[in-house]
């Protein structure tokens, strides 16, 4: 059978995917141990620190697993929709990015294992890690930029060769996702390059703490949309094909991605609502901008369920909900992302609570927040990525998705959902009681409040253990997928329904949208950042407190 994808391209994509899953396995081991420690079930041997594990878990899961998987997936969309194979320049940039990111990951992991960087994945100053930890982060971010430039190049050449034509929807979405990442990472790059590296090498004595936090969260919130948008690509473009339907509207899909690009960046203050040094007016302004993403979220929910209903009815589903039964529940390519979508309903609602200005006081830095992002990124996004893996890996390696692998995938999804129900459910509940996140086992001197939290911490550990079994099964599935019989697996890309209206070319006028992004960022950040720079706050020396 003919190999569907150029081997040089599939090798690049699969290298990213495999690297991502190895990071997930290591991050999963750290996560399991954390859960057991916090539940009071074990004590760590051999001088391993709880916070060391927590740093490894955050860096490997939130930064490495996601970024590698996403870049691999985005490159596969470029292969499939922008000319059938990668141009040499794009492929080389992809590898250059991969090598930089892989080196950065290894260096960061070594620094964490040496206990030189127990600063968690948010690395808040004035806690000061080894300068090489910050250098490692530079490698990861700069590597991802190179990969991004490769994608932009492929897209630019395609458009030059197809003058006046609308780009493929999937490629458009990949470009928005990467553009979001490039604009967002400018913040963390400025923080690391201009503040943390000179300070940790001792070239300057002090650091402006509020400025560093603000630059971090300028990056930290769009980061979560960088995780989410590739999942949305699957929901908008792949799922309709898998269920035998069509895309509800090309124009609305593009519009919702543009709205995410506009409103995910000028909003970082909603992570800093309880902080001094930022006036309530600017906090509230960014809260309002944060809530603008409700609009594309509502649009997405509508389109997805419209697609489900239309295709179910075309298959003969009757009555108000008859179409529901006709969805392909036994197909893991649908089932895993669908569970992710369902979880996104409570996950999104929790996010609205977190961002609600003064109401944030109830949940800020409690386990509620940990529970929240274990629903968003670690369930909605992760299950969608798993669902993608089941067809992406065989499609890239010229193999088949067997019935056995499909079944293992369904089991993996169910295990994940059960584990997360216990873990995230307990985190949400005990967080409302005030139990703090990012804290090792403690009863605060047997204070009655804290003693009451313990049963929830035990339930978290049980949920975490189930999740770890699901991680192991996923790793098995990944490698088993590379050993299935050779053959053809479809790379599912749906067509737009014939009833949809044509897409306005304005949606692809990048100059317009990037200018708007810049205007919104300047509006939201200029005055408060000027205040931080001019305000006479003395800087902080570095501290190593672990």
């Amino acid at each position, binding site marked *: 059978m003919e190999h569907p994808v150029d081997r040089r391209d599939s090798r690049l994509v699969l290298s990213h995917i495999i690297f991502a899953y190895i990071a997930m396995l290591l991050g999963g081991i750290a996560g399991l141990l954390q859960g057991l420690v916090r539940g009071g079930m074990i004590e760590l041997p051999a001088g391993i620190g709880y916070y060391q594990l927590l740093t490894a878990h955050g860096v490997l899961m939130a930064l490495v697993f996601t970024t590698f998987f996403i870049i691999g997936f985005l490159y596969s969309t470029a292969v499939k929709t922008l000319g059938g194979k990668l141009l040499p320049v794009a492929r080389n940039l992809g590898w250059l990015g991969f090598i930089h990111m892989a080196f950065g990951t290894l260096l960061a992991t070594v620094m964490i294992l040496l206990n030189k960087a127990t600063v968690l994945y948010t690395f808040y100053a004035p806690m000061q890690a080894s300068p090489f930890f910050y250098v490692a982060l530079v490698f990861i971010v700069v590597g991802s930029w190179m990969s991004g430039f490769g994608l932009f190049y492929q897209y630019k050449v395609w458009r030059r060769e197809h003058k006046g034509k609308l780009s493929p929807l999937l490629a458009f979405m990949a470009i928005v996702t990467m553009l979001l990442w490039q604009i967002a990472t400018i913040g963390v790059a400025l923080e690391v390059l201009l503040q943390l590296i000179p300070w940790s090498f001792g070239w300057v004595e002090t650091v402006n703490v*509020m400025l560093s936090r603000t630059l971090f969260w300028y990056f930290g919130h769009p980061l979560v949309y960088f995780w989410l948008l590739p999942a949305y690509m699957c929901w908008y473009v792949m799922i309709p094909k898998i269920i035998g339907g069509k895309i509800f509207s090309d124009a609305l899909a593009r519009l919702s991605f543009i709205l995410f690009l506009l409103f995910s960046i000028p909003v970082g203050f909603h992570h800093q609502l309880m902080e*001094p040094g930022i006036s309530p007016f600017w*906090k*509230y302004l960014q809260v309002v901008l944060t809530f603008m993403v409700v609009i594309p979220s509502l649009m997405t929910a509508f389109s997805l369920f419209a697609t489900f209903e239309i295709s179910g009815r075309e298959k003969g589903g009757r009555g108000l909900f008859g179409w529901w039964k006709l969805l392909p529940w036994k197909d893991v390519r649908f089932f895993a992302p669908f569970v992710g979508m369902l979880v996104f309903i409570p996950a999104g609602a929790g996010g609205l609570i977190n961002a609600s200005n003064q109401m944030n*006081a109830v949940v800020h*830095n409690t386990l509620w927040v940990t529970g929240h992002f274990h629903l968003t990124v670690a369930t909605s996004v992760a299950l969608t990525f798993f669902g993608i893996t089941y067809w992406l890996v065989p499609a890239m390696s010229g193999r088949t998705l067997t019935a056995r692998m499909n079944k293992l995938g369904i089991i993996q999804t169910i295990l994940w959902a059960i584990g997360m129900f216990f873990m995230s459910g307990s985190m949400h509940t005990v967080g409302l009681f005030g139990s703090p996140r990012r804290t090792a086992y403690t009863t605060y001197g047997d204070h009655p409040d804290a003693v009451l939290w313990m049963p929830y911490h035990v339930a978290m550990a049980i949920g975490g253990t189930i999740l770890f079994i699901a991680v192991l099964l996923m790793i098995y599935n990944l490698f088993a997928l590379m050993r299935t019989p050779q053959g053809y697996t479809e790379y599912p890309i749906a067509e737009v329904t014939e009833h949809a209206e044509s897409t*306005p070319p304005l*949606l692809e006028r990048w100059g317009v949208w990037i200018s708007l992004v810049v205007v919104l960022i300047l509006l939201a950040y200029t005055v408060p950042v000027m205040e931080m720079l001019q305000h006479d706050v003395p800087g902080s020396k570095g501290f190593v*407190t672990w």
Partner: protein
Amino acid sequence: MNVHIHKLEKIWLTFGIAMLIVFLVVLGVATFSMGMAPPSHSHAIDPEQIENTPPFDEPGLKQVGENEYEAVMIAYTFGYKPNDLTVPVGATVHFKVTSPDVVHGFAIPNTNVNMMIVPGEVNHITYTFDEAGEYLVLCNEYCGGGHEFMRTVITVQ
């Protein structure tokens, strides 16, 4: 730009956006006219000179009115100074807290007291303790190896 939107989707979006506006107006009114703004005090202090800078040269509880107190506190790795405050039932306490080292948290579970303590800044929050009890104060921002031991108790009697 003219994007055609399905009639049902128009209803869905109109309802959603209307709810959103109502919600944001409620948040805004509560923040700016009912005094519920999140702790946002801006007040520079040299973190290395805290012990020589009033009022942190004398941390502790000071009565400022009838059953009204000012609590000047230092959050440090890994504790709070002063430790173990006692106030009468019904006391309104104005907390002023800063840090001489890294970033800390200052949270009292089962209340709305929850704020970040950033070196170089003083954060403020006010709370009225209407019920007697031993209120746990804990650090909810990772601050180092002994973070889980960082706590104190406010006794209300």
